[in-house]
């Protein structure tokens, strides 16, 4: 299970941003081999530290809404996701709980009990953690590739999710199997795109990073 959970983290390897484009992708021929490649790399990852840039596209706006921040991951399944611009918002995932710090207000949720909250946020964290990617009950996954990248297209199966999202596209750099970006498209065609930059692997991350009070 841990392997599954951290699968996607293996993709967050070094290198700068390569603009994700959906052009010239064709279907991956040997899916099992691709999967095996990705999982093999996963085993070597204990921590990830990265910056991210999030772009929100809304059809009625001419410019996208940009937010930025940082995230830390530590095996097995500790995640710190922090927005720093243009607002501060911190969310920490541990194996059983979700903690949120919104300015000075701290709240916590049991991942099992708070269904609505989890549903929305799991899409995001699940994509990063890989449990969405491997969730064949809830998603159909299609594998595409071009010379530089893999493109994983996740289509939700469950009605509840379908009403929110029509697809999640994950772009992976072939040279190091790192996730370049994630694009979540809503039923209205509005989308959120998150690009990961300045990724550092297997550096020492203090456990305090996953303590909401510190």
């Amino acid at each position, binding site marked *: 299970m841990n392997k599954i959970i951290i699968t996607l983290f293996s993709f967050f390897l070094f290198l700068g941003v390569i603009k994700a484009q959906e052009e010239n992708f064709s279907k991956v021929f040997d899916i099992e081999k691709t999967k095996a490649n990705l999982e093999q790399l996963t085993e070597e990852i204990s921590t990830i530290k990265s910056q991210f840039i*999030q772009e929100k596209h809304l059809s*009625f*706006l001419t410019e996208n809404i940009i937010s930025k921040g940082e995230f830390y991951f530590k095996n097995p399944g500790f995640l710190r996701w922090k927005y720093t611009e243009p607002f501060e918002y911190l969310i920490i995932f541990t194996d059983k709980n979700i903690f949120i710090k919104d300015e000075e207000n701290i709240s916590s949720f049991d991942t099992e009990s708070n269904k609505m909250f989890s549903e929305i*946020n799991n899409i995001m964290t699940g994509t990063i953690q890989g449990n969405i990617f491997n969730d064949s009950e809830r998603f159909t996954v299609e594998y595409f590739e071009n010379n530089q990248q893999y493109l994983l297209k996740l289509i939700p199966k469950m009605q509840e999710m379908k009403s929110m999202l029509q697809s999640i596209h994950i772009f992976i750099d072939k040279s190091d199997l790192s996730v370049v970006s994630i694009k979540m498209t809503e039923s*209205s065609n*509005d989308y959120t795109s998150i690009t990961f930059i300045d990724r550092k692997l297997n550096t020492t991350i203090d456990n305090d990073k996953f303590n909401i009070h510190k």
Partner: protein
Amino acid sequence: MINSTSINKLKTGVPLFIIFLLFGCSNPYKNLTKTEFSAKNITEIPYSLPQSEKTLIYKTSIDFYQRNISGLLIIKKTEKQNYRIALTTQFGLKIFDFALKEGNFEVVYCIEYLNKKSIISTFEDDFKLLLMQNKFEQIYTFQKDKQKYKGWILQSGKINYYYFLNTDNNHIEKIEQWKRNAKKISVVLYDYNNNLPLNIQLEHHNIKLKMNLKRIQ
């Protein structure tokens, strides 16, 4: 018949708290001297928020009974008297997307768990009030607190929408919605910057709903 019964009840002793309640609910603006606002055009009211062409983004927290919804509220005037109001989570996922076209409210999208008639109509009331998009029959103006506040009342049947302007800084600082003698919604707007409020707090008085908005763009 109903009246005489009520009077009899009063005579036979009504608990004091009911009297308190009646007085407590009475509209304090009832006896203000108000004059008809001849313009009949809301754009004559110096309320900058609905007139801004900018994309306004507010970090928003909504407390709704036991629930808390937080995210980014985006308000955009798309055309004259046409608005889009959308709330997304911090992660970007849309929670709702409403359109206001010349006072007509339209749900473009709403996440399933909030897509209930009563909730939607509450949001409709809130955003129409905030963006001064309620339909009205008449506008009145009035003065309050020794001229410190100047106000406008948009009247529509039994409902009155009050917009209070602080004459010291020329900003709308308070908005209230009353139905007969009961205050339904109040809004305070403060810390104006570039003619737009950095903070907005909206509160319902008959249901447990509070909205807290902090401008980030």
